[in-house]
């Protein structure tokens, strides 16, 4: 060890974060060391605050500071429509469109036996519990990966018998892009699910 123990410890902590290797961790630690103390306290407080204040919404399992979250407690939203997504980032992505006025349900992940993620690790029980009321349609908006696809199939088998409408996002060519630059697999999928005009 060429540095002090507290620096080593900080490097260790940083490098445990996703996307940060030992070199970057070292650079971050050195940066922290050079900062004035109030700035470092600000960072530390932000870290602790996020952990203390942010919780999961008891209804949709999105991140929130209030419980239930602002979307779930907003009475102007269409409460008969639930969009099921894999994680909170997906909620942000759909909210940015300003086109969706229904509610959400965040599963937390997608089925992946290789990573040890089974149905009991997703918020599926919670979803089933929620839809006992007046829900008319459930939109399955998983990622276009094989894990997302397996989750879609699993959920649709589970939800179909309950009687409400089950839909999924369409797959095709990104809006505003040229056909010639669309990757072949996407184009092939778009051809398969072409629609009549």
């Amino acid at each position: 060890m060429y540095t002090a123990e507290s620096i080593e410890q900080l490097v260790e902590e940083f490098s445990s974060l996703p996307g940060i290797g030992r070199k970057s961790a070292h650079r971050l630690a050195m940066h922290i060391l050079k900062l004035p103390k109030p700035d470092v306290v600000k960072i530390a407080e932000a870290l602790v605050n996020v952990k203390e204040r942010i919780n999961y919404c008891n209804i949709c399992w999105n991140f929130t500071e209030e419980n239930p979250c602002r979307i779930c407690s907003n009475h102007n939203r269409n409460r008969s429509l639930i969009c099921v997504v894999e994680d909170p980032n997906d909620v942000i992505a759909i909210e940015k469109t300003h086109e969706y006025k229904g509610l959400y349900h965040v599963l937390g992940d997608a089925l992946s036996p290789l990573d040890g993620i089974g149905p009991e690790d997703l918020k599926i029980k919670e979803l089933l519990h929620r839809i006992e009321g007046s829900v008319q349609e459930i939109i399955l908006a998983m990622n276009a990966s094989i894990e997302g696809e397996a989750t879609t199939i699993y959920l649709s088998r589970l939800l179909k018998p309950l009687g409400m409408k089950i839909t999924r996002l369409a797959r095709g060519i990104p809006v505003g892009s040229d056909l010639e630059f669309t990757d072949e697999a996407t184009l092939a999928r778009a051809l398969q699910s072409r629609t009549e005009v």
Partner: protein
Amino acid sequence: MRLTTLRLQNFRNHAESFFEFGNNANLILGENGQGKTNILEAISYLCLTKSFYASSDAVVLRLGTEFFEQEGTFVSESGNENKVRVAYDKQQTQKAYFINKKSVEPFSTVIGKFPVVICSPEHNPITSGGPEERRRFADFVISQASSVYLKSLMEYRRVIKQRNKILLDARIGNMNPSGLLESWDEQLLQHGATLTHRRKLFVDGFKNILHSSYHELVGSEEEPQIEYSPFAESFSSEDDCRRLLKTLLVQNRKEELRVGSTLIGPHRDEFVFTVNGLDLRKYGSQGQHKTFLVGLKLGEFFYLKNLCNETPLLLLDDIFSELDERRSKRLLDFVGTISQTFITSTSVKWFEPFVEFNHTNRKFFIKNGSVVPEEEVIVA
């Protein structure tokens, strides 16, 4: 397409080498361990961004140096010139690929731009090894023609892995995973049927190409054949194939749970190679294996040529040592006329009677990682 020049720096045992290649046959001659195959390997870097057999970029770096570089000039059939450079830095363990000084990323976009067919002893297992070697060959050739196939293949492999994990967990934990398995079955059926159907179409077309390539080497006295044997005897369409796969999947569920892995699907396919009706793997001689391999590679060459509208380069690494004189001569006569070809050999004696060396057919003598005049090399 032709490769007109090649420059190597700190690559394997080459400190600094430069070549101006002929348009037809290029013989690379020298004793064992002098650096002949390294030149083919460098061409592979330019065409495919990687070596055709080294496990990593670090191992091809010349000992004691910090970076390697290859630079080549490709001239297309229409006369377009492209300067390609590959550079690797040991400190950053990073490789960069440039076409006309512009960095290209991701590397997968390079595949198919500068088509190449390589035949080396590394490929011997295609005819002599297990079924996975033949599946890999077929997948590699079809993937170059269809990125839809490649995508399907990659997703299929992952589905199998996920599904096998469920089966294995179920076996260990002694539980019934049926609801879970069915979530993956849908994708297994979809990709499984696509792959099987496309492999069948590929083999149907490839048979004729193989036939004519093989005959160029040996005449009509030997009949080569390639048979595809998937899980189902016959099927008429992709949908039909999917139905059959589904039935078999249901039938085999118990057995799959017992062994803990997926037993039906294109990951268990076999391609059977025969010569005169006899299974090559069981009855073929060394020379027949080599001939068949060269036939497959020439088949790959014509298959690619049809698809790319650009004639691939042909790299033949040490393949004449196992062919008899007649087959060698036929091969040499043939390859020089179809493409720019790069051939390594320990001895010039194979070639001197057949090849007239001039500006289109060239020979290079390699000694200790350098190009040297012929007199300096004692060639038996």
